[in-house]
């Protein structure tokens, strides 16, 4: 039988996309629709399972199987599906509130078990669908409708949390950087087991500008340090070096020698190195 080549259009559903104008979810959706043909998997073998939240409308907009499920419970539903149907490629779509607050336990146990799921965590550091309450990833001191004089709790760092939960694959990317997001999706879908992808996603209504430093054309090259296996970890202005006591730190390039820059090893089994990287920025 002749092989059918699918295109982005084949993965685009006829549903009206209902997100606020300017929402970062649009660019993530467009990147995913363009990436799926690359997978070479028939549409009927792909499933998107989401929880509740703005990002969880994602399955409606893809011409694959999908389920807009229960708040925080997408990893549990997706676990049952992928274990009983290992022939399927299963994605979980979730947000910072859905995954880390309401569904915190399902999230960590899916990672611990290394269930074959690709978990895309849209992190906008706010509850958007319910109109702007602080979330588990909102920075301390965040002023919102539910914290009028500032939030008091320390936020979760999703990468650190995932590492603590024994995740075998963890990456971070940005909604508007289509090339980088595609590269991360390629790596995650090649990984056998749980893959956690944290996506910094701007909410233009309730937390606009949360990631401006790493999106602005003037500052992003200095602000972003790309983790590429086998390559030094540096931006145009800063780099990661190891201190005398063994800890990692970020230093200006002008203050260090090139040979002292840490070369990234994504395959190191001991998670303490990846954890130290995750703590360089909170």
């Amino acid at each position, binding site marked *: 039988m002749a092989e059918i080549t699918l295109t982005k259009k084949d993965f685009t559903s006829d549903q009206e996309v209902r997100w606020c104008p300017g929402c970062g979810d649009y660019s993530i959706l467009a990147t995913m629709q363009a990436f799926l043909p690359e997978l070479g998997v028939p549409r009927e073998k792909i499933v998107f399972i989401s929880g509740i939240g703005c990002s969880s409308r994602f399955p409606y907009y893809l011409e694959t199987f999908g389920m807009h499920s229960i708040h925080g419970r997408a990893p549990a539903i997706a*676990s049952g599906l992928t*274990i009983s149907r*290992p022939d399927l490629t299963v994605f979980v779509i979730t947000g910072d509130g859905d995954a880390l607050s309401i569904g915190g336990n399902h999230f960590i146990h899916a990672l611990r*078990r*290394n*269930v*074959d799921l690709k978990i895309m965590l849209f992190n906008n550091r706010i509850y958007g669908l319910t109109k702007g309450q602080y979330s588990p990833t909102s*920075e*301390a*001191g965040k002023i919102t409708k539910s914290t009028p*004089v*500032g939030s*008091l709790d320390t936020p979760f760092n999703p*990468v650190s949390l995932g*590492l603590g939960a024994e*995740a*075998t*694959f*963890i*990456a*971070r*990317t*940005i909604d508007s*950087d289509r090339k*980088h997001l595609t590269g*991360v999706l390629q*790596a995650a879908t090649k*990984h*056998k*087991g*749980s893959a956690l992808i944290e996506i*910094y996603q701007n909410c233009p209504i309730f937390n606009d500008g*949360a*990631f*401006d*430093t*790493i999106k602005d054309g003037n500052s992003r090259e*200095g*602000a*972003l*340090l*790309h*983790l*590429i*296996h086998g390559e030094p*970890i540096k*931006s145009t202005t*800063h780099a*990661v070096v190891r201190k005398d006591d063994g800890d990692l730190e*970020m230093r200006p390039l002008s203050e260090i020698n090139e040979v002292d820059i840490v070369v*990234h090893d*994504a*395959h*190191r*089994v001991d998670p303490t190195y*990846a954890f130290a990287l*995750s703590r*360089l*920025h*909170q």
Partner: protein
Amino acid sequence: MRTALIPPMRLRSLASTNEHVLVGVFRDVTRPSYGDLVHEQVETVIAKQGKGDLAALLAGGDSWEIS
């Protein structure tokens, strides 16, 4: 006073927000997936004990008793 805590916390927040951010793959290591382990275990047990009869198990006697 509780509100006195807020200004320094907000300063800390400003200082730690997105000055420099690491992006890319932090960790990519190999470990058997849960699904593979489950299927392997089921096959091993079936090979040793046979496929079993779920209906008979459900309709069977008590598996434990209160003494």
